[in-house]
């Protein structure tokens, strides 16, 4: 059995929606250089005639492993054209299911990262537009920030370790 499913390889070979959006409605970042995956997600959000917020466009940039790249690509195809509130409901399990293969435990965090980047971009949009931030989104943001800080701390540990080696 190959390591990765056809779906993963498909997105990895030809990732969709790669790039940047100039003046995005929201921009989200997730990951840390220590674990090797960093991604940035850009959203363009507009209201439709019913007044609902719609994700008109989405782009991403990922420095990461195969699953990280495939995941962000897949996620962008899932949210494009969707209502903001529906996009917020996407969980990492939905991505894993779509990728068509059970991921090894240490790869699950790559799927979480993609979802995190999306939520951070939406959070950024709410913040910029001074909208009331849903409780779940706020909680998520705090968790992501905390993880980032923890990783940063470990990264600093690494830098100290490096310095010692170079001494």
């Amino acid at each position: 059995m190959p390591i990765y499913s056809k779906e993963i390889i498909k997105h990895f070979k030809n990732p969709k929606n790669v790039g940047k959006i100039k003046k995005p409605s929201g921009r989200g970042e997730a990951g840390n250089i220590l674990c090797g995956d960093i991604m940035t997600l850009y959203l363009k959000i507009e209201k439709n005639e019913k007044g609902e917020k719609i994700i008109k466009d989405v782009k991403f940039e990922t420095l990461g492993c195969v699953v990280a790249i495939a995941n962000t690509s897949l996620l962008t195809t899932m949210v494009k054209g969707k209502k903001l509130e529906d996009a917020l409901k996407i969980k990492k399990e939905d991505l894993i299911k779509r990728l068509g293969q059970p991921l090894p435990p240490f790869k699950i965090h790559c799927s979480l990262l993609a979802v995190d980047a999306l939520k951070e971009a939406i959070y950024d949009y709410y913040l910029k537009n001074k909208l009331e931030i849903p409780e779940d989104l706020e909680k998520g943001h705090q968790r992501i920030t905390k993880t980032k800080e923890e990783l940063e701390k470990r990264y600093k540990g690494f830098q100290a370790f490096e310095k010692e080696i170079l001494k």
Partner: protein
Amino acid sequence: MKKIYLDYAATTPIDPRVTKAMLPYFSEKFGNTMSLHSFGQEAKQALEESREVVANLMKAKLNEIIFTSSATESNNLALKGIAFANENKGRHIVISSIEHPCIIESAKWLEKQGFEITRLKVDKYGLVEPDDVRKAIRKETILVSIMHANNEIGTIEPIEEIGKICKEKGVYFHTDAAQSFGKILIDVNKMNIDLLTTSSHKMYGPKGAAALFIREGTKIEPLIHGGGHESGLRSSTVNVAAIVGFAEAARICQREMKIESERLTKLRNKLIKGVLQKIKGSHLNGPPASAMPKALRAGPPASAMPKALRAGPPASAMPKALRAGPPASAMPKALRAGHPKKRLPNNINFSFPGIEGESLVMQLDLLGIAASTGSACSSEKLEPSHVLLAIGLKPEQAHGSLRLSLGRWTKEKDVDYVLEVLPKVVKRLREISPFKR
């Protein structure tokens, strides 16, 4: 699609000549080496002849070779066997910080049993400073274990100097030569080695065979007890077919070593030079190849220089990354002295900032090139290679690393194909990355 295998440091295909030598030992000459009858005698004879061949390749005596199943087993036996047999003398062991995981984990386990471990730092090329070994040795030190050549970055350690120090101090010296045995010359006497690990499947022999050289008179305890095979140091029915294959592989390496290492060195240097020229921001991890840092080129007159250096390209033609070499004073002694052979002939390890190693390896695999990475996402630890961090790379540089290891069936056209494909793949992955260069 054509497939190019450039992961010979992970494992090698069995040479057809080796397969041929092994075949009679499966169904025909299948005896147990401990049996008294003719079947047993036949197997025993094959075993002892194999022992002689492997012993010859490192200038050891026949009774100094113990066959095991893997380099991991040999390394476990060396560390734990010496530790338990000599703990009345002391409980201190010295290793380097870039050893293979089977040494690192064995040492960590011994630490839990109350042994004390010193892990020596390495310089930016991955070299252990022999003087650090001297300083680390104490009254309680029973063993120094420093690898001969590193599996990730190909650094060849100054084991002859380290061996000399250990001999002076009366401490056992073990070296893990899994990556170097059969590729470069080893003389256990000249190098003052007391224990040496080798592996068959890294040198075109089968998996499941390996050896540990143990100098006569060394105090060591077995890990596996039983029928008393291998002088009581490794009980287990002997895997004769695999060992016969190992010996045949060693025989071939001995015969072809000189020509093969020259051929591979040329291919290696071509690939290194090409990649550093073609890929912006690329960096060679480990010791420099034939093209030496500036400080050396400005050194002794060409006539006094080793041939390999004289044949190097003129400075102006050299890639920037190489021209910006470290000043002479900061360079390890061996390099300052103009030693061009501190890197395994078949090892290449690059860093490409702005991309992640696993993606690079998978992308190359889709294009028919089999390579490897020491990157986090390939392992469960999510942390970059300990070797690359030890030589001073930042985590982001270590994540974007690629190891290409050449071997017996690598041709020049394979190198050309990599030089054509790799720059494109790196460029593509950098385009996806948020850190565009």
